[in-house]
Structures are given as C-alpha cells and as structure tokens.
C-alpha cells in the first residue's frame, strides 16, 4: 500500500535532527540537505500522484500507529493534497537552490528552521486530525517566527514580535475552539467530528466555529487580522518571504476551508460572510499596494489581495469556483516565486535598499531576469492565453453564476488596480535612463536557474492544451474532495 506517504513528514524531520550532527563533521554539508529533502519529497509526491491515477483517483488514508481512524491519527491524501504537496516540494526545491551560498551566519540553524517550516506546512496539508492540525500549525508558525527574526535588525525583530503576539492569540483561539468541539462530539478526528456535527446544538457550533475561524483567519491573512503581513514579509529574508507567500498562506487557506467545509459543514450564511471578508481583503490589499515604495511591501499587499481572490473563489462553494481557486493557488505560488526571487536578485545586483526606484533601467543590464519578471507579471494579470487568464475566467464565471454580479465588478476593479501598479513597475525597470546605483554584474546560476524553471512552469501550464484538459479534470476532482463531505467521511471511517 502507500503507507510510505508518511515519509513526506518523517524524512524532513529526520534530516532536521541530523543537521547538527552533520554540521559537526563538516560545516559545508548542511546546505545540501534541504535540496536533497525537497527533491525526495517532489519525487515522492509525483509517485503518489501516479498511484492515485492508477486507482481511479480515490483518496486514501494512512493510519499512524496502526489504530483505526476515529481513535488514531490518520493522514488523508487525495488530488488536492497532492497538488499542494507538489507545490510545496517544488517551490521548496527552487528556494533551497536559490539559498545556497546566500546564508551568512548560523547556516545549519537556518537550514533546520527552513526544513521544519516546510515540514509543518506539509503536515497541515495532509493531516486528518483536528488537534494534530493545531500542532502542525504551531510548528509552522514557530519556525516562521524564528525565520522572521533571522536578520536580527530592528525591523525584523519588530516584525517577529508582532507576528508572535498575534500568532499566540491565534493559537489560543484555535485551542478554545478545539476544546469546545471536542466536548460536544467526544472525538478529534475530522471525519468523525463531521459525522456528529449535526447533533451539536447550534449555538455551541457557532461559538466553536467563530473561535476556529478567528484563529485560522489570522494565519490565512484574511481582512481584519492581517496587519502583521506586510511587516513580516518586508523584514524576513527573501527566500523565507517567498515561502510565506507561495506556500504557507496556501496551506493555511486550505486548512481554513477544510475546517469550514468538512468539520462544520458551514451553511450559506457563513459562506457569504467569508466571501465578504474575501472581497474586503482583495480590495484593501490591492489598493494599499498602489502607494508602496518598497518592492517587498508592494508584493506583500499584492499577496494579500490574491488571498482575497482565492477565498472568494473557494467560498463560492460551486465545483467550478473551488477548482478555479485551487488553480489560482498554484498560479500565484509560481508567480510570486518569480517576483520575489527575481526582484531580490536584481536588488542585490544594484546593492539597493529595496525601493522600487532603485531598479530604474535595470533591464539594460539584466535583460533575462527583467524579461522573466515582466512575463510573470503579465501572466499574473490574466492576459490570455497565459495561465493566469484561465484561473481568473473560472473564478469569474462561477461567481457570476452564483448571482453576485457586484463581486464580479469588484474583482475586475481590483484587477485594474493591480494592473496599474504592476505596469508602473514594468515601466520603471524598462526605463531608458542609466541606473543610478553602482551595478555589480554577478551572474549566479543557482539564482537564475530557479527563476527560469518557474517561468518554464508557467509556459507549461499555458501552452500545452492536452495537458490543460487533463489538468482541469484533476482540478475538479480536487475541488470535489474539498466540498464533498460524505465521501470524505466514508473514505476515512469506512462505510
């Protein structure tokens, strides 16, 4: 069977514990361990995809400790989990390539934290137990706190402090929610809770739902509680920011909707409320991005806006909308990977401070990187026939068919705003005037290769039509896994 899927978590953990010992033997070896681990996880997740394809795409569970599901912890892996797993390990691999030779001090500690961050996110995506999810949420956020403070200058310490304070409140709320739901259903297994959730009195259900949603909304960067995001994104080292934006947010959005759809079987009122939050998040994110002068801060606000779009899509609850949301998750992870890594590469070349104006006219010196960054911006904006267009089409059509014409108009408005500041950015890097800062030409292959590979992925998603048809099928199946509660229950608990 596929019990080896547990290696997705066990192996990174093993590697993280091994790093201190390896570092004692040779100081230079630890930097290769993240590459090995993420490469192994990529292979493993592709292997799981093949397994799933060979078995009619029915999701499977992995029992840990050999106890039957409501009593032991189980993992739940289907197309959705595998899509996210492939995303995590692919982006992780790219970033570990990018990171080689850029970490200055405390190298082995940095790599430990990095691997454990990826491990926590992996656990969030595949676990089938509510409290286990809490533990992985804590692993993710504690490694994120340490990585945010990694540079130890004033800005990163402040950002880390902010993140810690709001993150501990989030975990407290999640814990209260889990306690209440445990008291009313006497179980912690997600499928089992979902099975019994209708016997829980409505007011208890609402209380526990609101506690969990406050906690998870903080981690998923939703509107009223995302004040920490720009600071944390700006202050952390760029590879870490990329991980936050490309992976961590995606996994927490997944958890958010897993709790909403499967655990609580949320009704239309709650969905509309969440959709409203998504709309506000989208608008505030995009409009705040307009007036930013710092690139990472601009990208952070743009990230918030994209979170809003994904949340709108998934909370529409139609299979097309959820599929569009998942598609947008993949796209956004790749685009933001290029944007964060590419701009950071440009900034280190001109030894700038991170302002947009530092990059004036950089395209003359760095044509390839500039071209790839602009290309990914165009794809992100949704110019047909690039991949961003298809995702946006799916989202818009599903929101339209659910009868929210105003929201469609607002999404289009946000896209226009997004286009304004991104095109302004392209105009800056293609400016014809000479660059002001001293330019130091450093062609580093380990930095260019990830960016080029990301760009190739965009092309792959955009232009291979045969691939697209099959891909849409997979997306719809993944959407079905998220929304179809009864099949989730029957897979975990047996019929």
């Amino acid at each position, binding site marked *: 069977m596929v019990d080896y899927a547990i290696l997705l978590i066990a192996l990174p953990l093993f590697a993280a*514990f091994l790093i201190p010992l390896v570092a*004692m033997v040779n100081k230079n070896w630890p930097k290769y361990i993240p590459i090995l681990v993420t490469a192994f996880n990529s292979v493993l997740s592709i292997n799981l995809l093949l397994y799933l394809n060979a078995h009619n795409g029915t999701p499977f569970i992995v029992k*840990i*400790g050999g106890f039957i599901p409501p009593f032991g912890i189980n993992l739940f892996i289907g197309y959705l989990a595998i899509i996210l797993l492939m995303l995590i390990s692919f982006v992780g691999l790219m970033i570990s390539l990018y990171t080689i030779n850029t970490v200055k001090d405390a190298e082995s500690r940095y790599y430990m934290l990095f691997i454990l961050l990826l491990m926590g996110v992996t656990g969030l995506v595949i676990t089938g137990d509510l409290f*286990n999810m809490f*533990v992985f949420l804590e692993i993710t956020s504690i490694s994120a706190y340490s990585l945010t403070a990694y540079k130890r200058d004033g800005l990163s310490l402040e950002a880390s402090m902010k993140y810690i304070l709001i993150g501990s409140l989030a975990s407290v709320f999640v814990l209260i929610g889990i306690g209440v739901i445990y008291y009313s259903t006497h179980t912690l297994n997600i499928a089992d809770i979902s099975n019994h959730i209708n016997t829980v009195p409505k007011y208890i259900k609402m209380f526990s739902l609101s506690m969990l949603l406050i906690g998870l909304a903080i981690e998923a960067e939703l509107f009223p509680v995302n004040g920490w995001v720009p600071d944390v994104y700006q202050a952390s080292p760029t590879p870490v920011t990329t991980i936050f934006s490309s992976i961590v947010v995606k996994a927490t959005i997944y958890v958010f909707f897993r709790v909403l759809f499967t655990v609580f079987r949320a009704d239309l009122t709650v969905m509309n409320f969440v959709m409203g939050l998504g709309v506000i998040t989208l608008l505030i994110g995009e409009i705040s991005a307009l007036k930013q002068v710092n690139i990472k801060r601009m990208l952070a606000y743009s990230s918030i806006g994209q979170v809003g779009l994904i949340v709108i899509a998934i909370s529409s609850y139609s299979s097309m909308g959820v599929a569009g949301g998942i598609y947008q998750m993949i796209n956004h992870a790749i685009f933001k990977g290029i944007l964060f890594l590419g701009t950071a590469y440009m900034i280190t070349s001109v030894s700038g401070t991170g302002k947009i104006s530092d990059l004036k006219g950089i395209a003359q010196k760095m044509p390839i990187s500039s071209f790839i960054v602009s290309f990914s911006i165009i794809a992100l904006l949704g110019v047909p026939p690039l991949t961003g267009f298809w995702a946006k089409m799916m989202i818009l059509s599903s929101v339209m068919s659910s009868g929210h014409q105003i929201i469609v108009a607002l999404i289009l408005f946000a896209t226009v705003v997004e286009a304004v500041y991104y095109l302004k950015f392209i105009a800056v890097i293609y400016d014809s005037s000479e660059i002001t800062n001293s330019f130091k030409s450093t062609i580093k292959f380990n930095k260019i290769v990830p960016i080029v590979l990301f760009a190739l992925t965009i092309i792959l998603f955009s232009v291979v039509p045969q691939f697209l048809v099959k891909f849409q099928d997979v997306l719809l199946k993944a959407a079905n896994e998220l929304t179809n509660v009864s099949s989730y229950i029957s897979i975990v608990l047996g019929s």
Partner: protein
Amino acid sequence: MKKIIATLILLVFTFYTYNTIKGFRFGHDFLNAKTNNKKISQKIEPAGKHYLENNKLENNASNVVTSIVVSYRGFDTLGEVTVLFLAATGLGVILTLTKKEDDDENENDSSEGEPSLIVKTASRILFPLIFIFGAYVFIHGHLTPGGGFQGGTIIASAYLMMFLSYSNFKINHSIFKSIESMSGLTFISIGLVGLIGFGIFLKLNLIPMGVFNTLFSAGLIPIVYIIVGFKVGSELTAVVDSYRENW
C-alpha cells in the same frame, strides 16, 4: 479610550461565551451516558471511552494518559518534541550570535551576585538527586503520573539550579546538541522500523508487551518516553543556558 474599547470587546466576548458555556455540564458523566440520537447510524462511542477500555489490550500501560500521549497520539508527541527543538534552535539564532555588541554593563552583574558556600554545597549534593528523580519520573511514565516531558523538565531544572549557584558553571554544548539530535533520530527510527517491518509508522507493540503494571510492560512506550525525556531535558537545558549566556 483604549480601556473603554477593550472593556466593550471583552463584554461582548463574555456575553457570547456565557451563552455557550451555560449549556455545558461540569463533571457530567458523558463517557457512559446513553445517547438518544437516532439521526446517526454509525458508532457514537466517545474516543476517551475506547481508550480507557482497550488500553490494556492494545498498549498494556497502566497510565492511560501516557498511552494516549505516546501511542495513540504519538504523532502529536513527535510534533511537540519538534516544537521544543524549534524553540531551542530559534533561541540560538536570536540570542547567542551577537554577543560581543553590548555586554559592557552586564559584566558587573554576574560577579556581584555570587551565592554563598552553603548554597553551592547544597546544590552540588542535590544535583544528582534531582537528576535521578527526573530519570525516575520518565522511566516510570507508563506506570505513574509523569513521563518524558515532566522528567525532562525536572532534569533541566537541576541544571538550572547549578547555573544559579555557580555563576561560571559551563555545560558542554556539543554533547547536549548530540544528545538532542540522537534522541530525535532514535524516535523517528523507531517509527521507521514499524514502517519497514509492518507498513505502520510509529507502531509501538513490536516487542513483547510484558506483564501489566510492571516496569517492563507496554512494549516500546517506556523506551519512547525515555527518549523524549532525554530530548526534552537537553532542549530545555539549552534554552535555559542560552538565556544565561547572554548575561
């Protein structure tokens, strides 16, 4: 102004919570209560009841909390150990590296508060006793209250006592680091043995289960808890030490 807003928020929260919690019954025997719900066809056995009844058969540990922590929810414990590991690593990143910057004023602090001879002698005598007590707590984790986390913390507090009474007491960092890593690796290896042999990660009944309520019972549970004890002990000692080093 801030206080008024905070009070208002808290009042709303209190009201909301009160409305929910008033339906809860403290000390109600829900494990053996009859359910009058006919909407559900599937089993509605509370997980807690299942653990209490099947624990002897499946884990053979007298302390059910231990068998839940280590065996039924062993994956959580692995995560928990990782959280401590993360905290120790993060502390190392944040605290110990920029030592040279500013220890001008703090230099005088440590020399001024040197403890008296009585304290020093007493703590030297007490240290092995506390250490052994910690070891006792985690070795008997499957029989009596306590276990790896508690025992590990007790060992860390033994070191804390030494740190407090000897201002120049040093620990060997590489030994502690190795213990930390080795115990983590052993924990995962035990899990992997089950995976390779039986296709089940963290299978703990690989060795004979022994006689109930004796030291050699409960399969691998005591061994895992001893490993957890070593790991927690070395991690918390590292945490305490990195706070102290920054004096």
